[in-house]
């Protein structure tokens, strides 16, 4: 295990940058940006090293003992790296965006400090080797995202913060109870490919089902499953980079990733099926998909509409996990990445619109395509991806989910997928139509600068993420794409034939 220091370095780099940035005064912009970017770059290098290592079967793991018989474990299996790559890449993009977005705003050191700590938590969740470590970093994520949600310091921000805390801390409490219960049932186990609760057999069916329910409820809060999604729309009051990174990538994906870990590495998907818990999970996620899309339809505020579409999109992943079979698993895994790319494109472009033209609501978007063509182009790519139009990443996911469901004989899933695609179209196409084909009817609420489009630092990240979203779709079959990596995971982790 010579490379054992690499996972620690992956968690340590953002931690170090975060602490140093906390100590910086607000006006030291250059130093802070340099620190941020170098931290992001070092992180990307580490991730690349780990990707190459894991691709050819190498494994780094670190074990730190906290309490006799209980350790913090960091492992680098293929699933961990999928989420890690996504978060590292998008963190770099969003940092650049945030530097531009928050120019001469107050409390920037505090903002970027917590921003890096948030990535520490996400990395920790990705590399967690057992349920306890996953829980520890999961709670840290709550702690460090709260100050970002209430960063603006207004009364509404505090109210949104209270809502956010109410959901996440309640989820955390249920989770603490569930993790301790799992330790009581099966002792402190690390994640095992086929799940370690299998040996308990189905004689303790009731307590195992309750445990599964508690774990899913705990993680479901962050994965915005139906009854627990209330905090996501409320948290849109946060600045754009926060809502982009956290609610499109880090926080929401952490919940989905954790559910994948629970189903595949704690219970094992066959044992879960034997317990009969996958069915209700599928129904719940399907309902969330439809519910999210319907609520998105009724939202006039752009960011609220995107928030509700995130609620429904994340449930695709949970649906893919809940449907037995290799294809739907691959669909779920690859959607983890695709949805991240597409959603960050949408949020960043929405941020551009708000920052440059002060456009917050859909009805103000008439003719914005002409005023800011590049941003709207990126927004269009993201929107089409969401609907699942062929060349984009979204299409890849839906194909795999559909064929997986058909293979598992669950026809109603395909109906759900079709209906949700239709609903996506219903709430995205009017935006595109009014943006491109409607003339500008009213003056922009408050316009900054008369330049061609948004500022460079805001525009470049948006274009990059749009390119990624498109590229992932187009070059799906190339060995380096997330789809390949998803197939590798399902083949290595869950023992399905290629």
């Amino acid at each position, binding site marked *: 295990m010579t490379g054992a220091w690499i996972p620690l370095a992956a968690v340590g780099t953002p931690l170090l940058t975060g602490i140093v940035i906390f100590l910086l005064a607000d006006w030291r912009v250059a130093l802070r940006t340099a620190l941020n970017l170098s931290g992001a770059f070092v992180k990307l290098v580490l991730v690349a090293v780990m990707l190459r290592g894991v691709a050819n079967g190498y494994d780094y793991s670190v074990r730190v003992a*906290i309490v*006799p018989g209980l350790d913090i474990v960091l492992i680098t299996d293929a699933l961990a790296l999928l989420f890690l790559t996504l978060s590292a890449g998008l963190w770099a993009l969003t940092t650049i965006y945030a530097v531009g977005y928050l120019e001469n705003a107050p409390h920037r050191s505090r903002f970027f400090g917590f921003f890096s700590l948030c990535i520490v938590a996400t990395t920790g969740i990705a590399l967690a080797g057992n349920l306890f470590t996953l829980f*520890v970093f999961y*709670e*840290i994520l*709550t702690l460090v995202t709260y100050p970002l949600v209430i960063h603006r310091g207004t009364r509404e921000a*505090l109210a949104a913060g209270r809502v956010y805390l109410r959901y996440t801390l309640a989820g955390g409490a249920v989770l603490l109870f569930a993790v*301790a*219960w799992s330790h009581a049932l099966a002792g402190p186990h690390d994640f095992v490919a086929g799940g370690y609760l299998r040996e308990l057999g189905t004689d303790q069916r009731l307590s195992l089902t309750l445990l599964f329910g508690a774990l899913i409820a705990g993680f479901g809060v962050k994965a915005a499953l139906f009854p627990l999604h209330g905090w996501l729309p409320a948290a849109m009051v946060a600045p754009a980079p926060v809502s982009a990174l956290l609610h499109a990538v880090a926080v929401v994906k952490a919940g989905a990733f954790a559910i994948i870990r629970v189903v595949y590495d704690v219970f094992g998907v066959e044992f879960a099926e034997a317990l009969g818990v996958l069915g209700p999970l599928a129904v719940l996620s399907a309902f969330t998909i439809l519910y999210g899309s319907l609520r998105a339809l009724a939202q006039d505020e752009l960011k609220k509409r995107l928030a509700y579409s995130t609620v429904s999109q994340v449930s695709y992943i949970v649906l893919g996990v809940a449907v037995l079979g290799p294809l739907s698993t691959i669909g779920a895994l690859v959607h983890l990445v695709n949805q991240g790319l597409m959603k960050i494109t949408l949020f960043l472009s929405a941020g551009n619109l708000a920052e440059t033209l002060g456009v917050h609501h859909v009805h103000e978007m008439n003719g914005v395509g002409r005023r800011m063509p590049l941003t709207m182009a990126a927004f269009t790519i993201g929107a089409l991806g969401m609907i699942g139009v062929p060349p984009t990443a979204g299409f890849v996911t839906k194909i795999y989910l559909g064929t997986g469901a058909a293979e598992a004989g669950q026809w109603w899933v395909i109906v759900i997928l079709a209906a949700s695609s239709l609903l996506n179209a219903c709430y995205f196409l009017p935006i595109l139509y009014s943006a491109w084909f409607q003339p500008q009817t009213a003056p922009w609420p408050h316009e900054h600068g008369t330049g061609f489009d948004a500022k460079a630092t805001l525009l470049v990240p948006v274009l990059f993420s749009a390119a990624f979203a498109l590229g992932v779709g187009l070059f799906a079959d190339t060995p380096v794409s997330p789809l390949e990596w998803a197939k590798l995971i399902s083949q290595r982790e869950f023992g399905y034939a290629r």
Partner: protein
Amino acid sequence: MTTAAWMEALLAAPLAGAVIALISGRRAAALVGVVTAFATAAASIALAFAVSRSGVLRYAVGGWGRPLGIDLYVDGLAAVMVAITGVVGACISVCAAGYFAPKPTHADLPSDKHDRAWLYWPLWLMLWGGMNALYLSADLFNIYVTQELIGLSGIGLIALAGGSAISAALRYLLLALAGSLLYIVGVELLYAGYATLDLQQLRDRIDANPSTFAAAALMTAGLLAKSALFPLHFWLPPAHGHAPVPVSAALSALVIKTGFYLVVRLWLHVLPGLAWAHLATLLGVLGAAAVFWGGVQALMQERLKMMVAYSTVAQVGYLFMLFPVASVPEALPGALLLAASHAAAKAALFMCAGSVLAVYGHDRIRSINGIGTRMPLTAVAFALSGISLIGLPPSGGFAGKWLLISAAFAAGAWWWAAIIVLGGLLSAVYLLRALAFAFLEPPIAGFGRAPWGMEATSLVLAFIAVGLNFAARPLSELLNAGAG
């Protein structure tokens, strides 16, 4: 230096320091106080290491040996409590050096009290000496005298603040006195039954007869009054709320723990023979009631110091939830870790409240907008100690709660685990409510300046409270080494 040498130093240093401080009066009391504080802290940590190295020590004071003379018995449990008192006590002394500095920098201690501020040092060192003597003693009556020493010095310290602290000190005195007398009735019954006052001799001679049960019940009742468990908690909030900041920190963080320690010593070391399952459940239920009652009260408080005082009532509840699950080996380390991180975090919180009081002149929770920008150190200390009190992962409080919860599951009583988790949620509500105001814009301008020591020490204590997360392993090793 053998264990005995460290123990003698630990016993004599605070008492000697107190007398010197008394005699030196206004001029050098603070200097003597701080020097003694660091000496005692060093001795207590060295004692903990010595015990973990060479196991239990039985020491006959005066050379007479057990039934006739007084024995001191230093095992893992005593060493841990002494170490906690040492570390937190040293930080409190530094904070007090700044707080009672000659020129008045805070509205908390009225200006006409300043010629008597030097009295803090002899009283505080006596309190500390009393606590050390209590943890080390293995003689029932000697424990009574140390409790009186602690009680009296505590009352003197509370009365330093004057004003409404006087009636609070008087109520505390009456209750502490009544508690001690109940304790003494128990001691008399045990002495009548077994003709010895030594704890370990009692353990070998105990047999379950009604008078022993009555004695144990009376002593426990007396101790519960001292550690302010739920039905007998009403004296704590006014006493800790109105006392000067370093005093309320010392009382909430350390003095409350002596009552808890004695109940643990009584029921886990001296009387395990008795069938006390029902009493254990009663203690657990009272603990649970304390957690919820304290939490609700803390939520309704307007002032920061009163909120922190009520949160002490709640946190004491957690400690007493050890008893229903005490049969599981990892329950005790969990409770001690919880006690340690609560001590550090609570002292830090009181110091933060003190800093806010010094800067803004008041500590109303609703109007401390933006202390994050105005007093960054205090805000970070408040956040970290809040995290430890709630029991969120990267903190000592979490490790303690985790051990208690897994002990509850191991003992097959999952409902205790549920209560601990819900209690944590409740404390999250009132602590983070106060913290949220720190981020509110626009920040209100404060005019004063916090004493130099207070902000720094509160940050150090907050880091200790979080750092205790990694102390679980050495702590359980110390307890096993001391099991002896």
